[in-house]
């Protein structure tokens, strides 16, 4: 899926003052491309991710997915678009504590009305190596296992875009590396576009391209995906 970000800006009113969280951000992500968004805390990374996902609306500019401007859709339209095209991985895993691993993976499939939710979820759990833990609750799983369940959940709906917010932020280096390996492998298999917000230099370096945000502005040059590995290095 082609993602086009055009002059994106987000500002909030704090008392009398206007605070720009994001300003004039433009870049594109091609189908199958992997992009890391890096920057210090408070640089606007998560806000950018939220805007790309349509979870929030920009103050200015546009996000287009395959040419469709998100701000032209209403809230429900954006939700439907997410349901069809996007997968999410979060820093805090966001598994529902009351559900088993399998049920957590089934949830987005069921919401999409898939009759084969249980089988598909089971297959994806198998792919992340957690078949044996399908009946376990999140509290009975380690952090790495929880994030693998979250990966299975994200990929179960065959997304065309995967959005990951600090996917290794809550994991140790070793476990983080395993999760990253798995994420890239699954992404390759599904040929999805991948956008990762991260502090983790190792993770960022594995992406085709890195975009650095500072004070809400892009500081790295915008380059095409073909030459991006060169620039990144």
């Amino acid at each position, binding site marked *: 899926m082609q993602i086009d970000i055009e002059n994106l800006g987000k500002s909030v009113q704090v008392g009398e003052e206007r605070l720009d969280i994001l300003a004039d951000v433009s870049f594109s992500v091609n189908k199958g491309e992997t992009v890391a968004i890096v920057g210090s805390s408070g640089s606007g990374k*998560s806000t950018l991710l939220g805007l790309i996902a349509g*979870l929030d609306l920009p103050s200015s500019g546009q996000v287009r997915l395959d040419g469709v401007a998100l701000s032209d859709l209403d809230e429900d339209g954006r939700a*439907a678009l*997410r349901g069809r095209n996007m997968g999410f991985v979060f820093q805090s895993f*966001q598994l*529902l504590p009351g559900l088993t691993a399998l*049920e957590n993976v089934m949830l987005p499939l069921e919401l999409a009305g898939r009759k084969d939710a249980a089988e598909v979820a089971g297959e994806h759990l198998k792919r992340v190596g957690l078949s044996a833990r399908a009946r376990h609750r999140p509290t009975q799983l380690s952090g790495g296992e929880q994030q693998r369940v979250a990966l299975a959940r994200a990929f179960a709906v065959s997304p065309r875009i995967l959005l990951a*917010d600090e996917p290794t932020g809550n994991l140790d280096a070793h476990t983080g590396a395993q999760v990253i390996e798995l994420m890239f492998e699954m992404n390759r298999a599904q040929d999805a576009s991948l956008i990762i917000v991260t502090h983790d230099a190792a993770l960022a370096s594995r992406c085709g391209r890195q975009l650095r945000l500072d004070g809400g502005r892009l500081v790295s040059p915008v380059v095409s995906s073909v030459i991006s590995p060169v620039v990144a290095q």
Partner: protein
Amino acid sequence: MIALALRLLAREWRAGEMRVVLLAVALAVASLTAVRYFADRVEQALGTEANTLLAADLALVSDHPIDAAFVREAQASGLRVSQTTTFLSMTLAGERNLLTGIKAVAAGYPLRGDLRIAPELFAADAPTRAVPAPGEAWVDSRLASGLGVKLGDQVDVGAISLRIAAILTFEGERGGNFMALAPRLMLNAEDLPRTGLVQVGSRVVYRLLVAGREAGDQAKVTAFHAWAKPRLGRGEQLEDVRDARPELRQVLDRAQRYLGLAALLTVLLAAAATQMALRRYVQRHFDQFALLRCFGATQRRLFSLYLLQLGALGLLAGVLGSALGWLAQAGMVHLLGDAIRIGLPPPSLLPPLLGVAAGVLLVLAFSLPALLRLARVPALRVLRRDLGAPPAGAMLAQGAGLAVVAGLLFWQAGELRLGLIVGGGVLGLMLAAALAIQLLLLPLPWLAQRMPASVRLGLLNLRRRRWETTLQAMALSLGLLALLLLTLVRGDLFDSWRNQAALGAPNRFVINIQPEQVDAVRQSLAGQGIADVILYPTARARLIRIGERLVSPDDYVDGSDDARAKRLVEREFNLSSLADLPPNNEVVAGRWSGQEGFSVEVGLAKTLRINLGDELVFDAGGLPLSGRVTSLRKVEWDSFQVNFFVIAPPGAFNALPQSFITSFHLPPGRGAVLARLVADFPNLTVIDVEQVMVELRGMLDRVSAAVELIFLFSLAVGVLVLLAALYARRDERAREIGLWRTLGASRRRVMLALATEFTALGLIAGGLAAAAASGVAWLLAERVFELPHAASPVVWLAGFGGGWLLVLGAGLLASRGILQAPPMQSLRRE
């Protein structure tokens, strides 16, 4: 979508998420239905019980022979029927004659209750299922002593002569209205035509008595009532026990209102429990909602999904609660059925339906505002934890819940005034409580600084979560209010009942004492150990003029009270002439000087449209008696004391034929006193109301037992709500305690902090509840139960003490598991 909603519900249930909500709602519904079930059955049973005093479940009264169509319809409906004919006529025995109330009855009479007869005057009596055989008569003691006849003697009634076969000592139908009635002679209906007394133009009262075959046949009776009502012709009316027996009507009405009050308070408790539980549920679902939005679920879809889930939950809770309620009332009936000695009819279908509806409504109404809020949770919350739901417009958001509670209140109360008082009281309490709690929390930090560390921790904890504390204290004070209110009103009710049919209350009336016999009768009674009787002068007179208006029965044809008014102006009634009003009489308008003017009973004044200042003219046996109304009095007709409609000043009867009347309590087994009195003064008539009082007392006992049961049940529910309110914060508390423990607080210190918190909470809630209960109990006593209410400082003691003990006890109980658990476990809770 329904399937998905149910699947999600099932998962949440398994995860334990829903259990608390389900339990709270089911419990609430259980209490609601148990009280309703039980009240329903007790109500039906009390109705049946009271119907013995009407001799039927329903009576059709007519001044002309009753149309056979009514009889046919009643029989076709499967009801039992019996007919009676009553009229006034002379009874003769030798030289003596007496105006007598003649009553002709057929086999099967009475349909409810029993007659009681004795083999001779003042002898022990026993119940009977028989009626007088053809050719025989049963007479009451007044007729027997008035005519000077005994068993086996013959009396003449119209054209026939009847043999006296028994002394009739109790006839439920006559009840307390003995004063106005002539002595009784009962004969068999077969003999009636031969008397030749019933002819065109005779003033005869025909009654068709109707009753179900089994105790549960109330629906058939109600159906017959509905069928017959539009078909009533001129001079025909339907009476149930409430119309026929005003003194019992008050007992029944009050008992029913109390049961209503209990049911009503359970609605409020149910609402509080549901609100607490659902609030917690929704708070725990913010993340889930945001996540599902991320997965592409639209707001509307999620809203429907949750609504379906919660609706199913409400249905489940409703069904479960109704079943529980049924079990609870069955248990109560089983355990106490003997004690309350009422043959309880089977429960009706209404309570479970009400229960299921209440379950669904309660859950939906209380979750709706929360759901609306949930639906507005930004999906961005998955990335930014700091984003919550926008705050709900508090009044608007709670509107749905309050509307449902108000609806349930009025439905349960079945009476606008009761509903308004309780509803208003509770709403007022909630608003006042919110304000008061906020104010009470203000000085806590100041206080905390001066306290030891553990106490400081507890106090600051309350202060830190101001709104949470406020809500919790509101729920707690509501529970306590319910408990206090039920206790207070129950006390007032029992006091009044105890006074009404006290064991030492007068059970014999002596009438027809001539002015010259007054001292001799008083001495005779004193000589036999019955001292200090008061003899009231009385004259019989008919009201002929009110102001300039001549009184005629035709003036009273339209109003609701007019049947009674018509009867009152058609006959003579008893006046007295006194300086001091009898005890229990209370002047409600004007002033009684004891020297001039009339004092009129307020009910009579209302019925006959008599106002303060009106000139009344009576005809007392052809002699006029007139005076201006200077006061209106409230009289307790059910007090078994001598009472009068109209009281004139002393000396008013000087020119009139007058006699005296008295009442006294005759202990059991002292029948000889009466025999002696009647022997010394043969013109006196003694009226025995002992049996009527025994009946009334028995009924009051049963009603009290029923009220006591409902009270205990509501009490238990109130305590459960307190527990639920404290449990609602359990997870949060667990994390808190885990953190305290992690940071090095000893178990003892944590205990102390918790105890401080619960003590403060209990005292706040208890004080508020006591304040509200005092006000609402007074209002209820004054406006609904019409009882005297003595404000008591005990309420405050009970409020503070009870609140403290209950909240502390329940709170520590609710936190027990958490205190034992290792801190790690508490911290890992989600």
